[in-house]
């Protein structure tokens, strides 16, 4: 049995490499961009119907709030996993309500869909937040673009 001798120097190098890798993973997690789709549509769940709001104001984190009419859908780009959503709506007695929810976007999801009526009805996150995979539409063939050379750096006006 040969013992692996770890010199002090190598030990620190190893620690440094591990730290950098950890940092990379952390950056990957907190820097991941997710697209949140906000959906104000009537939703059916367990035989019950949750109607869309005629008008609702949605705010994600500290971004500008978005106004959604019935059957509207809008999107917001967010960075990282944990976010706060604030929904402001007026009920039939003209009273203003504010619902604040925290949610976490799973790391693998590029896009999630949030149903506002389900959220306000407090149906549980697994129902009002779902992964959304955009349908791949048939795209018209694009003209092949090939690298252009700018030998003299004429286009470096932005240097």
């Amino acid at each position, binding site marked *: 049995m040969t013992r692996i001798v770890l010199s002090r120097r190598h030990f620190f190098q190893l620690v440094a490499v591990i730290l*950098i890798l950890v*940092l*990379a993973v*952390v*950056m*990957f997690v*907190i*820097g*991941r*961009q*997710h697209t949140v789709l906000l959906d104000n549509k009537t939703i059916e769940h367990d035989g019950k119907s949750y109607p869309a709001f005629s008008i609702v104001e949605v705010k994600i984190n500290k971004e500008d709030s978005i106004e959604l009419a019935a059957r509207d859908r809008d999107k917001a*780009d967010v*960075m*990282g996993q944990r976010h706060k959503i604030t929904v402001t709506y007026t009920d039939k007695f003209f009273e203003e309500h504010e619902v604040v929810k925290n949610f976490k976007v799973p790391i693998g999801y*590029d896009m999630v869909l949030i149903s506002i009526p389900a959220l306000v009805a407090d149906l549980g996150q697994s129902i009002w937040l779902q992964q959304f995979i955009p349908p791949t539409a048939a795209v018209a*063939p*694009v*003209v*092949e*673009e*090939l*690298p*252009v*050379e*700018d030998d*003299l*750096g*004429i*286009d*470096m*006006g*932005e*240097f």
Partner: protein
Amino acid sequence: MSILKETGGQKFLGIIQNNAVPILFGIIVLIGIPLSGYSVGYLGQEIVVRIARNSFLIIALLIPIMAGMGLNFGMTLGAMAGQIGLIFMADWGIVGIPGMILAMIISTPISAFLGWMCGKILNMAKGREMVTSYIIGFFINGVYQLIVLYGMGAVIPIKNPALVLPRGYGIRNTVNLITIRKTLDNLFAIKIFGISIPIATMLVITILCIFVIWFRKTKLGQDMRAVGQDMEVARAAGIKVEHTRIVSIVISTILAGYGMIVYLQNIGTLNTYNSHMQIGMFSIAALLVGGATVNKASIGNVFLGVSLFHLMFIVSPTAGKNLIGEAQLGEYFRVFVSYGVITIALVLYEVRRRREKARGGRLLAQEQAENMEENT
């Protein structure tokens, strides 16, 4: 006797000659500014933006100069590594400051490897490091194209269709970096006299400057200077010359990679096949305009150089248009000046090196003559 003595006039001439490039450039800029008709405020804002954008890249050139390896045309290698980091970052959808940091982390091992290779090759070509590093830039550009234009999307998985050419593999001509655009610059910006100053970027550059100053004083930095002075003497003193030279290039390449990321976060789009090629040339030109030479460069040269060079860059198309009615002319002019400045600086350096030798001889003769007089 009188022929041997160095007169005041000669000294003055020496100062002028030693700073010929910045003086010449100052004159060009002074003529150009009124011709272009830009306001001082506009020019000031542009200068601030460009100092923040380019200084990092240019500072990356300082360390090989210290080690006597001349202007590191191989900094394009680092730029390519930085761009590869950005491509992955864009593909994985990492945004903002974390995206930039991740791109830097990805670029580091690539830069380090390329820098190590470059250093190895330069050790085989002592005495013509500059032309060799220049050709290495071209050579690795071929490898870069092979990987990015043919490998990515085919061998290396790229899932974001916005990045890939319509044929299914290879990265597009331009990669949109809107997700990190100006994130560092706007992280903390303040306005002074109507000029917005990106404090965060400036802070990063300051830290780098402090690093370089500190580095000069470390054992490794001292070794590098010794190697730069005289390789054989350094070897006799027990310094590992080859190793030291490689390390200097590796550091420079890694910094160039980071510099490229800082530069592109300001620009906001990556020209996949062009951005890196000219960056070396323009950075070197800017450093030389600041009064640096092939064997001597300071942080002061960097900032003076960026300011003067970019004033010329901003002013010349408009000045050309107003003067002759052709903007194209001004654009050709600034390219000509960039190349011309490098040519003149290289020639002046060689000529000065010879004159320094002659001057040293003359001073020695003068000293000896004085000694003789004292003795009699």
